[in-house]
């Protein structure tokens, strides 16, 4: 919220500079995001009087004005048509500076005025429009800003109409609705600066009217307790016109567009006091009765912005008419949120009925959130408006209307009340204060609280508790103060939290525990990074199309992602069921950015799976679970050349990475031939219970534009959280004997099957376990190897734990194993 320093000083007498005050406000909870001096870009601009105005001697559409500047005469050429002799204007002589106007209309660096020739007439500087002063909204006339007749010729513009004002842009937290006004900030400063003095309200005393209304008007009924009180004021003989220049400048500077004296009066009061007001044209009210009631389910109203709003029973309406059986009253305003289109003030409005009401924060908050309407009124009501302000706001606005439009006021208000919430005393104990702040001066605390208008409650005088327990009653504008901690906060923020001493937490009967998931992630990422992988974090959202890109079939849970109800874009509308698309996108980004080398990526993150497939993917109801997953991707790069022999990654080099990730958790893993919808038919392995390793199917590689193979793996992490402990055994102290076996193996048989048969053959022939290991050391095909086969050569290590195996014994067993394999159909070499 933007606050004017000049207006602030009409509410509180402050000795602090804007900078000092901004610092105190910031440190105590009302963060001042910036201090602006919009006038700083304006210099050398003064009031001048147009002495004469004539057509330019040769150029059509131009006028030549002779100005009296109090320092002499000046000649200005202008295209504006709204001037006449005798008008007062702002004049910038050569050397004066103005805010430059960017193409978007925002003020930027300043520009300096100079001399400019228009044909034979030289213009010495220029007369200024509101836009040229950086205030395009202030003047409704196209052309030069014409000043009020009493503008003193020669006076510096910055001394007039608030043009030299200082603005504080304050970020008000949602609990402090009271700070959404100049009055509120002034009270806050009064609390921060105990020596400062709050000034009386800036309108005449006894402004409340006494006259009866000259027009018939019925009663106000408040059947809905969401309206705490409701006041109607009256202004007749209204002359709709622009507001005084000073007011228009103030409104524009505070971010509101000046409209007319009547509307501006309501907005001005809202900015100054924080009380939203609404002006109705009496003649547009269907009936001269007001009922504030809850809406019917499905009831509609067209609001000021022209939109039709569909309502529920939780919304509240200001309506015209009296409730009778069978007939609903007619909505004229969505209470606290926005007025109705039919009943607003128009250019020819003559009688204004002014509404000042107190609506519950909760109800207005509900409606404005549900409808997504963040009007100035709704913003304030939903953060809490002092319920005692509504009547004062009406009085002040009527006073301004009579000043600005000559309207007749002084009529009695018509009012109605529901039960008013009385601020309840809150107890402050020395004990809790001491616990929280390590400081507990009850006397000083009382002074601090009273500075904020939080008064010590007399009725809670405590012989019983002594001076260590005191009760305080918050003012009507501080509904946020309800519990003891709220009082401690007031004291803490006044004193400044930097004053509190620094302590470390004490000893706990428990160590800090990193937890299974996080420590597993720590180990795996270190391993993957050491093996050449780059750690990625990709979006948890995916476009719906990932299901078809990966060819996920309908019976695959991954094909049924959860959909967001309100996605931010088509690309981010479902929750990922696999990390694969994110990594593929990372690969695409890498290649697109010109990276030609290998790409190895991994991500540790969650996937979101429905408990069961759902026929209508966009609806819901079925439960879901979140799984921690590690996924990896390897691509040799668009230019995999190196000076060395082949170093390109392939299925088996990536398998080594996957195994490393498993082995670091004490797990070997069986890889079995498997299939994935997106996997290469011949290069896809399942790791049962853990995941998969696959090359992408060539069709998908092609579709995504990858020239080299893409290898991917995905591992479920839950099963790896508990690391298996390694089992250590010392080597046998007896020597080993080595024998080789070379054989033809059908391509249909896996290495694991052959190894199992070799092991079984040895075990069948020996009572003790003597085969220490079998290792594949060569694999060959081509010349001499029949089609459909490959040659495999294994090295067998025979070794016993209790004795030396002699050559004869080993030969005997080895030959017998060869025979057995031969009988099983292997062609031994």
């Amino acid at each position, binding site marked *: 919220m933007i606050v004017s320093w000049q207006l602030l000083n009409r509410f509180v007498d402050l000795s602090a500079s804007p900078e000092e005050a901004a610092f105190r406000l910031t440190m105590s909870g009302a*963060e001042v995001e910036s201090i602006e001096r919009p006038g700083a870009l304006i210099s050398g601009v003064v009031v001048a009087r147009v002495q004469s105005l004539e057509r330019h001697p040769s150029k059509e559409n131009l006028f030549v004005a002779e100005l009296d500047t109090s320092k002499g005469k000046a000649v200005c050429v202008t295209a504006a048509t709204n001037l006449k002799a005798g008008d007062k204007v702002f004049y910038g002589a050569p050397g004066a500076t103005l805010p430059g106007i960017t193409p978007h209309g925002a003020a930027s660096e300043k520009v300096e005025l100079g001399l400019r020739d228009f044909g034979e007439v030289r213009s010495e500087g220029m007369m200024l429009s509101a836009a040229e002063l950086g205030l395009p909204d202030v003047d409704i006339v196209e052309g030069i800003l014409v000043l009020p007749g009493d503008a003193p010729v020669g006076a510096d513009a910055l001394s007039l109409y608030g043009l030299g004002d200082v603005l504080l842009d304050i970020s008000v937290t949602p609990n402090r609705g009271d700070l959404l006004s100049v009055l509120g900030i002034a009270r806050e400063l009064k609390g921060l600066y105990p020596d400062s003095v709050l000034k009386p309200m800036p309108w005449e005393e006894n402004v409340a009217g006494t006259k009866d209304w000259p027009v018939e008007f019925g009663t106000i009924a408040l059947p809905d307790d969401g309206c705490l009180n409701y006041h109607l004021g009256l202004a007749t003989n209204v002359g709709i016109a622009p507001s005084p220049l000073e007011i228009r400048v103030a409104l524009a500077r505070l971010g509101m567009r000046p409209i007319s004296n009547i509307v501006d009066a309501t907005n001005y009061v809202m900015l100054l006091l924080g009380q939203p007001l609404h002006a109705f044209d009496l003649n547009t009210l269907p009936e001269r009765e007001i009922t504030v009631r809850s809406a019917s389910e499905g009831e509609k109203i067209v609001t000021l912005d022209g939109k039709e709003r569909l309502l529920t029973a939780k919304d509240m309406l200001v309506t015209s008419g009296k409730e009778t059986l069978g007939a609903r009253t007619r909505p004229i305003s969505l209470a606290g949120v926005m007025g109705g289109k039919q009943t607003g003030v128009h250019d020819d409005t003559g009688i204004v009925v002014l509404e000042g009401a107190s609506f519950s924060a909760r109800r207005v908050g509900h409606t404005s959130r549900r409808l997504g309407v963040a009007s100035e009124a709704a913003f304030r009501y939903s953060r809490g408006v002092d319920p005692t302000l509504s009547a004062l706001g009406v009085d002040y606005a009527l006073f301004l209307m009579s000043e600005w439009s000559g309207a007749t006021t002084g009529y009695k208000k018509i009012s109605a009340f529901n039960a008013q919430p009385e601020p309840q005393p809150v107890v402050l104990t020395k004990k809790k204060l001491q616990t929280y702040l390590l400081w507990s001066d009850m006397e000083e605390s009382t002074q601090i609280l009273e500075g904020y208008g939080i008064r010590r409650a007399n009725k809670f005088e405590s012989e019983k508790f002594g001076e260590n327990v005191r009760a305080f009653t918050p003012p009507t504008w501080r509904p946020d103060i309800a519990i003891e901690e709220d009082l401690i906060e007031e004291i803490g923020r006044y004193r400044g939290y930097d004053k509190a001493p620094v302590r470390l937490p004490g000893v706990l009967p428990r160590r800090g525990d990193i937890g299974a998931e996080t420590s597993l992630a720590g180990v795996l990422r270190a391993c993957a990074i050491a093996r050449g992988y780059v750690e990625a974090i990709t979006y948890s959202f995916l476009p719906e199309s990932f299901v078809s890109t990966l060819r996920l079939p309908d019976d695959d849970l991954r094909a049924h992602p*959860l959909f*967001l109800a309100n996605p931010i874009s088509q690309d981010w509308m479902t929750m990922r069921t696999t990390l694969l698309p994110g990594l593929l996108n990372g690969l695409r980004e890498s290649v697109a950015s010109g990276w030609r080398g290998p790409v190895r990526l991994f991500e540790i993150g969650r996937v979101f799976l429905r408990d069961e497939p759902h026929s209508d993917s966009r609806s819901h109801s079925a439960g879901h679970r979140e799984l921690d997953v590690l996924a990896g991707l390897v691509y040799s790069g668009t230019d995999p050349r190196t000076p060395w022999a082949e170093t390109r990654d392939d299925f088996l080099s990536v398998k080594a990475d996957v195994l490393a990730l498993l082995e670091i958790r004490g797990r070997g893993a069986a890889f079995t031939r498997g299939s994935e919808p997106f996997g290469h038919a011949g290069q896809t392995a399942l790791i049962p219970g853990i995941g998969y390793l696959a090359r992408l199917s060539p069709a998908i590689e092609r579709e995504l534009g990858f020239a080299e193979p893409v290898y991917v793996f995905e591992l479920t992490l839950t099963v790896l959280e508990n690391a298996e402990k390694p089992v250590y055994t010392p080597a046998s102290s007896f020597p080993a004997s080595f024998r080789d076996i070379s054989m033809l193996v059908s391509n249909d048989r896996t290495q694991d099957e052959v190894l199992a048969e070799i092991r079984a053959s040895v075990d069948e022939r020996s009572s003790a376990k003597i085969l220490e290991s079998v290792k594949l050391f060569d694999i060959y095909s081509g010349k001499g190897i029949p089609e459909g086969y490959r040659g495999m050569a294994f090295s067998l290590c025979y070794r016993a734990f209790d004795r030396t195996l002699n050559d004869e014994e080993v030969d005997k067993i080895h030959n017998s194993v060869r025979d057995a394999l031969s009988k099983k159909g292997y062609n031994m070499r």
Partner: protein
Amino acid sequence: MSDLENQVEEVKSSFDRAVVSIATTDALQKLKVQYLGKKGALTVLLKSLGSLSPEERPLAGETLNALRDALEQKIEDKRQTLIRAEDAEAEALGRVDVTLPPRGRPAGAFHPVAQTMHEIVAIMQGLGYSVALGPEIEEDYYNFECLNMPSWHPARDMQDTFYFPDSEESDGETSKRRLLRTHTSPVQVRAMLRYGAPLRIVCPGRVYRRDNDPTHSPMFNQLEGLLVEKDVSFSVLKGSLIELMNGFFGRELKSRFRASYFPFTEPSMELDIECVECGGKNSNCRVCRGTGWLEVCGMGMTHPFVIRAGGIDPEEYNGFAFGMGLDRMAMLKYGINDLRYLFDGNVSYFLSGRDA
């Protein structure tokens, strides 16, 4: 001079001549055989000892043994010389251009945000905090209601939320409707319900808000902290966070604690640290925008409402909570300007400065 002495002298001088021209260890081995082998010149002389008289033998034996020792020593010396020369030659031939690119895979790289998370978790573990995790798809109750943010609460405006379709149907049963958590704070109540008090936890994780512009990503990372013990003062919150910041940035940073507001803490504050880029010395600093301060963490004393929602008696226990953006911390530490680079998995960014 006796005959033997002449022969000794001759063997000695012929050996000395021969050994000088030896250039390889193989030739040296041959020379050794030639003199000390079974039929070698010295062996022949040793064998001739038998023909000497018993009186001559000791002296002659001594002379010949001395000669043998001398020859063996010379051969060994020569061998050492030759080995050194041969090694030197082989090493010269085997020279590798050490500036060539390495073969095999270079190391990968960490993600700055993940690294930040692991570092901060380790710092906090040292202060006795344990890691607690929670779901990313949350229920309205845990994300908002139990944190003192009922559906009408204006604080919800600060957190534009992604919902799942089940949210729209029943207006009555809103507390179970699913959404993407907008902060890591829901883990507070979940952890209190699960572990009770006393409790010290940090909760890192992904969070989501419906924002997408150069300074906001719809997905980002936070770390929440919660301590619930007896008679907890704000000073302990201060100490915990100062340690966290100084530990993470690796030096003593100026800090200031500003009053603020969160519905689930009372009192509430925010922590500003001195600008890690300019230290407050550059009025045009792009990181702190010339303010000298960086807002890094929201916090406060846990609201009794929240403690109660966690199944703990706020009259017996109190505590504090804090929450910070891990992405922001990572960006500050590693000088990253644009959030968007963090989540697209482009290796050329994370391997900046390395050759493709």
